[in-house]
């Protein structure tokens, strides 16, 4: 409900906002004095002349940097963005001595092109801020008020603008290492960047929706059938990994919290150790435990229970079940911890009155514990589910996505999740174009599930209703 309102409200503002902004820019120009007019070309000019040195110098520096950046670096890359380069680097052997002729590099063009576009937008935004400040100077002077000094500007970073101080560093980090790479990879999904097109000797270029068509094409050399196999298993895995862990974890928590059970702390600590020990140690050990020559097979053979070893990791069905079972070992302890905390919050008198009414333990669980837990942990279940969709560690440490099959394209195996397949495509096949497409698909699946489930959650729908 509230979301709908927000989105409609937002749709209205940007357009009218732009109109208002343009009008304000116009009025700043017509009404402002010559310093304001000159600030349209020389940023920070008005501020400097009004003795706001800190602001003025920063804006001037930004403009100088921007012009220098664009002239020496940015403009070239932006201009090459539409083609991603035309002349590849090659070795000219026509002369007596082979000479390397350096050409374009699609990778650099795409990356720096995106970066330069961002610099351009940032500059436009700052230019707008610069205009607004000049407008502010004009208004303040007209009202006969004092302009904020540099010292006041600086101090505001710890008072009303403290949020900007706090968020500056995280925002820069996220922009450089998350936003730019994600936009870059989204663009890669529309190019033919793969093993055959490795710049600088082989350029890549835009191919439109070809990769997406390839992903959805069934049969032939298409990725279609593999994609749906992997997607299906990803969903099945996430479902079992989330809900089995959840219910069994809750069960273990109830067992430990049961009245009259002693050494509660000991039981808990034993389970909690699995969280502490790095997964690559414990899971790799478990992987070896179930290997063909591992301990489990060895003892089963020794005791005469089987005649030949069980191929735990090479049989598709066994491997899949085993992964889910081993994941219980990983997933029960955190759920147990969380459930313990919440179970203690359930009012005891609810159980008392149920007991007086003659309810047995199972009935009490079904009509008191479970609804309470589900209500409180709804958001947790959602994050756990999306986390399991992308649970790289468990799959990769146990099977690496194996068993492989000739029926699957792109080096995928039958226990591969989308995310491990994405990893294989990137690292083993250097098939970046398809990896990027898979990445976008992972995003789509996560986003759709999150949105749909989030709206269905009772704790979101009526926050006050459950008491």
């Amino acid at each position, binding site marked *: 409900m509230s979301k709908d309102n927000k989105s409609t409200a937002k749709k209205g503002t940007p357009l009218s906002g732009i109109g208002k902004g343009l009008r304000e820019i116009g009025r700043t120009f017509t009404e402002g004095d010559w310093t304001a007019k000159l600030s349209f070309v020389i940023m920070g000019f008005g501020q400097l002349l009004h003795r706001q040195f800190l602001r003025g110098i920063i804006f001037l520096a930004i403009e100088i940097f921007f012009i220098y950046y664009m002239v020496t670096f940015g403009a070239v890359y932006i201009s090459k963005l539409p083609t991603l380069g035309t002349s590849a680097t090659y070795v000219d052997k026509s002369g007596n001595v082979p000479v390397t002729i350096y050409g374009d590099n699609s990778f650099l063009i795409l990356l720096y092109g995106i970066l330069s576009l961002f610099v351009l937008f940032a500059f436009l935004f700052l230019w707008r801020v610069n205009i607004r400040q000049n407008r502010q100077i004009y208004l303040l002077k007209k009202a006969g008020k004092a302009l904020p000094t540099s010292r006041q500007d600086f101090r505001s970073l710890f008072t009303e603008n*403290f949020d900007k101080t706090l968020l500056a560093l995280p925002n820069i980090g996220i922009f450089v290492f998350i936003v730019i790479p994600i936009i870059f990879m989204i663009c890669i999904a529309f190019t033919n960047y793969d093993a055959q097109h490795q710049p600088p000797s082989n350029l890549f270029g835009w191919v439109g929706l070809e990769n997406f068509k390839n992903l959805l094409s069934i049969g032939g050399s298409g990725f279609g059938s593999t994609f749906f196999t992997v997607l299906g298993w990803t969903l099945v895995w996430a479902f079992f990994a989330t809900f089995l862990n959840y219910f069994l974890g809750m069960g273990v928590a109830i067992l430990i919290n049961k009245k009259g059970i002693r050494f509660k702390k000991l039981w808990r600590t*034993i389970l909690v150790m699995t969280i502490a020990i790095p997964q*690559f*140690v414990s899971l790799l050990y478990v992987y070896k435990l179930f290997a063909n020559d591992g301990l489990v097979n060895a003892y089963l053979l*020794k005791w005469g229970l089987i005649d030949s070893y069980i191929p735990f990791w090479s049989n598709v069905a066994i491997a899949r079940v085993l992964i889910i079972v081993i994941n219980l070992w990983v997933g029960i302890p955190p759920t147990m911890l969380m459930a313990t905390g919440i179970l203690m919050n359930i009012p005891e008198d609810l159980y008392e009155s149920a007991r007086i009414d003659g309810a047995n333990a199972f009935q009490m669980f079904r009509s008191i514990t479970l609804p309470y837990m589900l209500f409180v942990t709804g*958001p947790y279940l959602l994050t756990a589910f999306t986390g399991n969709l992308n649970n790289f560690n468990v799959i*990769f440490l146990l099977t690496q996505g194996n068993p492989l099959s000739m029926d699957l394209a792109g080096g995928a195996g039958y226990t591969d999740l989308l995310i491990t397949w994405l990893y294989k495509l990137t690292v083993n096949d250097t098939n970046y174009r398809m990896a990027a497409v898979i990445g976008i698909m992972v995003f789509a699946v996560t986003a759709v599930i999150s949105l749909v489930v989030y709206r269905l959650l009772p704790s979101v729908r009526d926050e006050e209703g459950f008491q």
Partner: protein
Amino acid sequence: MANKNKEKKTASRSRNRKIGNAITYAILIIISIIWLFPFVGLVLQSFRSYASEYGGMVAYLMPKEFSLDNYTYLFSGDCSFVRWYLNTLIVAVCAAIFNTFMVLSVAYALSRLRFRGRTLLMQFWLILGMFPGFLTMICMYFLLQQFGLTQAGAIPGLVLVTVASSGMGYYVAKGFLDTMPKALDESARLDGASNARIAVTIILPLAKPIIIYTALTAFMAPWCDYVFASYVAFGYSKSYNVAVALQRWVWTNDYQGYFTRFCAGGVLVAIPVTILFLCLQKYYVEGVTGGAVKG
């Protein structure tokens, strides 16, 4: 087990409870054995002699002869285990310090300050978080390469990437700060304290549990980091972390005889992390529980 409770009250009930408890104990003991088995196995096999027994997979659990062969190998000159260990430790300590700083800055700003674009920023980061992390790998690798932070410089590179993107993991910390009463800030603001002053002198001391939680989780993550660590250090073994190095011992066929060495390395990695974790367990539980309820 509890269905019997239905029948009659008092006497039979206490008998039933005893049976119920006995069954519960039995289940808990079985669970404990299952959960502890891999660790016990790991420790036992790490003591198997490399010289007189085989270092690879064998068909028995108890070593025939206890020895420290595998441990001495790890610390001998043939193996850079100490280097790998230090690499991981450096990343972990840096992450614990700087991530905590970043996460708390973000959490504080989003939780206790109101500014333009706050919800927009949160929604934007939520959407960013839905993209799989590996998607960004090749681009990040290239960025790091530009600064010479791959292969030989992989460790500072790893620190940089870990810290730079850590701000997005603010959810648990924000949930914690949200629960602190607003009146705290307001009364201080009336006394003329600046936002920065309120953050440092009033909120920070009260946020100790969440600081420890954040630092602890940040410290533990690098011990498990395989994907990006192996990608950045590609082919340069001195920059491996323990996860990358030990993984190679388990997976590559030539390394068959290295299994017990892997066990020894695993034990050495697991011990300090586990001890630290168990000491700070209380804070971890608070974080997990609080985070779950807040969503």
